[in-house]
């Protein structure tokens, strides 16, 4: 059954200073379908959807929602027209509680007084529906990212929109939450809701997608039934070339021990963690969200306080009290949350890349050598194929995936002994993922120890040489990537689930 067209956007164009983000793009959504909107980082997917939801004003083109034409929308008008959006980045007021966030901007009132009890009950209803265990009175800032993402989803559901846009909703969710989300999507579909689904996790698409629209470099490329494309065709349309190997593994001989952590304890999420990294190998860290992997890296890097434990680098014990110590010793960390920990979004790409490497590009007098700085940044942009009009634009204006590349790029500019990647491919397109794998491989060849944290099992299994699995703050298993199976990893990753 084919639903009627509920959104049609035609010849949309949009420019930002120095970038043509959208160039004559057309897009159509029917009721009761899931439309996957696909494209590389910076292709313009988020921009197109932000125009539809009233965040940005278009420069040209027409928008029709439910048959009515709209000149320009603001977020509230879009909502009234039936469009709800879950943005790529979390948009939560951290000081407000869950229910307050869900109803922000459309509070229920009784006369002039807020009807908190009623809003809390409604919030609870939607959270229950999503199968998440969250107290509506909980302050949002104290919840983990995956829960916050579920709240965003519940918030979008609670407006009963006819058009629901999900911009990478799953990049911070655990597999159980993703399953819950998919069943909600199926239900909304059957209720005649049209859903736009943006994701770089292409393997998810088969579960829910009806049609796809593919964009590249701000232009419309093609669209059609999902079944009429093969995955390779989709990828080729996205990146404009063929990608032969999704997980390019290289062979190296395992060399001497470079780095070792013994008996590390830090808070509830890091308990008795011991492991070592050798030359010529990539060690993958698998596990569910909240398994304590990020916390482990933070403790190693000296961001969080260690209660106990020793860190040994090239057979010598090193004291790491703060990130400065770690960087000096030759340990670097590309953190998981790029907006919060990885980037100064108001500084330029140049300044971001240079920041941890100022010791290398400053003269004795502390003056920055502009030429060296430019060289360093241009090299990073080239190595990682960062899509940007120049090095002197704000890091915050890059597309999500390109921001992530800057985070990685700023650490690769210096010689290190240990490089820790925490979810380096989150929100990154297929082509860029492969580039990041190549970078890890290059480090591996150079004898640099690589610690690779990822919640996506296929990539851990495809790229790492050895897999360490964590659960509830402890290491629960270690596997050889050659022989490991998904089930085995999952078993270790959920070892303590029943006890939680």
């Amino acid at each position, binding site marked *: 059954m084919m639903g009627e067209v509920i959104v049609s956007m035609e010849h949309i164009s949009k420019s930002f200073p120095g970038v043509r983000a959208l160039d004559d793009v057309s897009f159509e959504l029917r009721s009761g379908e899931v439309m996957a909107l696909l494209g590389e980082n910076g292709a313009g997917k988020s921009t197109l959807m932000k125009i539809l939801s009233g*965040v940005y004003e278009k420069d040209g083109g027409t928008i029709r929602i439910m048959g009515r034409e709209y000149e320009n929308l603001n977020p509230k008008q879009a909502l009234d027209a039936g469009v709800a959006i879950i943005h790529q980045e979390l948009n*939560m*007021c*951290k*000081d407000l509680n869950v229910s307050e966030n869900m109803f*922000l901007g459309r509070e229920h009132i009784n006369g002039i007084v807020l009807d908190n009890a009623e809003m809390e009950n409604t919030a609870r209803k939607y959270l*229950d529906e999503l199968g998440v265990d969250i107290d509506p009175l909980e302050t949002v800032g104290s919840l983990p990212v995956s829960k916050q993402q579920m709240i965003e989803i519940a918030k979008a559901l609670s407006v009963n929109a006819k058009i629901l846009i999900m911009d990478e909703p799953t990049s911070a969710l655990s597999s159980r939450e993703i399953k819950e989300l998919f069943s909600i999507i199926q239900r909304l579909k059957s209720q005649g809701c049209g859903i736009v689904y943006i994701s770089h996790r292409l393997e998810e698409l088969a579960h829910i997608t009806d049609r796809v629209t593919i964009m590249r470099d701000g232009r419309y490329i093609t669209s059609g039934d999902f079944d009429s494309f093969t995955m390779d065709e989709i990828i080729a349309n996205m990146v404009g070339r063929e990608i032969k190997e999704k997980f390019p593994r290289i062979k190296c001989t395992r060399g001497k021990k470079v780095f070792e952590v013994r008996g590390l304890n830090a808070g509830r999420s890091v308990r008795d963690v011991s492991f070592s990294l050798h030359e010529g190998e990539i060690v993958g860290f698998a596990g569910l969200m909240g398994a304590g992997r990020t916390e482990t890296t933070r403790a190693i890097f000296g961001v969080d306080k260690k209660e106990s434990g020793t860190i040994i680098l090239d057979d010598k014990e090193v004291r790491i009290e703060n990130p400065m110590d770690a960087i000096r010793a030759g340990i670097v960390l590309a953190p998981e949350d790029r907006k919060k920990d990885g980037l100064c979004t108001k500084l330029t790409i140049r300044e971001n890349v240079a920041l941890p490497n100022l010791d290398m590009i400053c003269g004795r007098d502390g003056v920055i050598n502009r030429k060296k700085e430019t060289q360093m940044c241009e090299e990073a942009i080239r190595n990682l194929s960062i899509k940007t009009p120049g090095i002197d634009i704000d890091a915050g204006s890059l597309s999500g995936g390109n921001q992530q590349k800057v985070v990685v790029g700023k650490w690769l500019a210096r010689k290190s002994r240990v490089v820790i990647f925490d979810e380096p491919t989150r929100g990154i397109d297929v082509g860029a993922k492969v580039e990041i794998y190549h970078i890890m491989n290059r480090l591996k060849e150079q004898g640099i120890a690589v610690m690779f944290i990822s919640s996506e099992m296929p990539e851990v299994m495809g790229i790492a040489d050895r897999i360490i699995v964590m659960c509830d703050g402890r290491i629960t298993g270690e596997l050889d990537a050659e022989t490991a199976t998904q089930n085995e990893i999952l078993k270790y990753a959920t070892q303590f689930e029943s006890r939680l």
Partner: protein
Amino acid sequence: MYRARKTGLIKKIMRIKGMGAALTAFAGLVVIYVAFGIMNPMVFSGQNILNLLRSMSKYLLIGIGQSYVMITGNIDLSIGSVAGMSAMMTATLMTLGVNPLLAMLITMAVCLTIGFINGVLVGRFKLPPFIATLGTMFIARGAAYIVNGNRNTDNIGVVLGKDAADSFQNFFYYGKILGLFNTFWIAFVIFLVFYFFLSKTRTGRHIYAIGSNVEAAKLSGVDVVKTTVKTYLISEFCGAVVGFILCAQAGMGNMEAGNVYEMYGVAAGVIGGVSPLGGSGILLGTFAGAAVWQTLENGLNMIGAQVGIQRIVIGVMVVAAVLVSVIRNRKD
């Protein structure tokens, strides 16, 4: 699934965000008050308590205005000068024979205009609030000088007559209802109204949301400009009322009235747990903060501390209060 826990009234109150900080400030208030009382028992006298309540009212009002602005993550440096302008303007008008009520209305309109300008500069044109209100601070103080030709005013009764002047002064300062000074009642009623407004209405909710994350608020359809303007209107309203009180107290307009009050407002809020970074704090805390501030001033006076010592003690208190709240937040 989550089920609502059965909670007692006390637990429910403690779940109100900012309540912990407010109650801590009240506890601090008791400690400080008792400590001064031990050093000089006159602190406990009924007369002193009455005076304390009256003089803290000015800080409470300024604190309320400043707290509204601080909860959105902004600041209002102009509120003290607005109070001064308000005192000078009402006094000048009254010395010209204008009826007190009309004088106050005119003054209020001018003060609210300053608030509107602040709100538009910060909300609409995105000027850093520190700079925008620094500008209006000088403008308001300048206006306070100019209205009466760079002189303090004469007694407000010279043209109006003693009766009219007395009734104005009694209404705002010297009169009593139920044994407490009117000043306190005025501040208390304003406190209750704005407490309700901030904690129970949609605009109040939006004020917290903006302070917590402007971008998220905007994307949720909150009108950031309007809400910001409202906070500055409230702030300058409070400033204007303080001006009336200062005018009534002195029976004349003083060009330096309300000097550095904006900072007393910041201190009252911060001591009570209102974060200058925005998003948190409740007016009950501001109430406690204003009381702490006034008790310190009063107590130090009563034990005969020099002005210099007073300033230092007060400075230490402000930093200590913020330090405590920062450490408490880190634990959460």
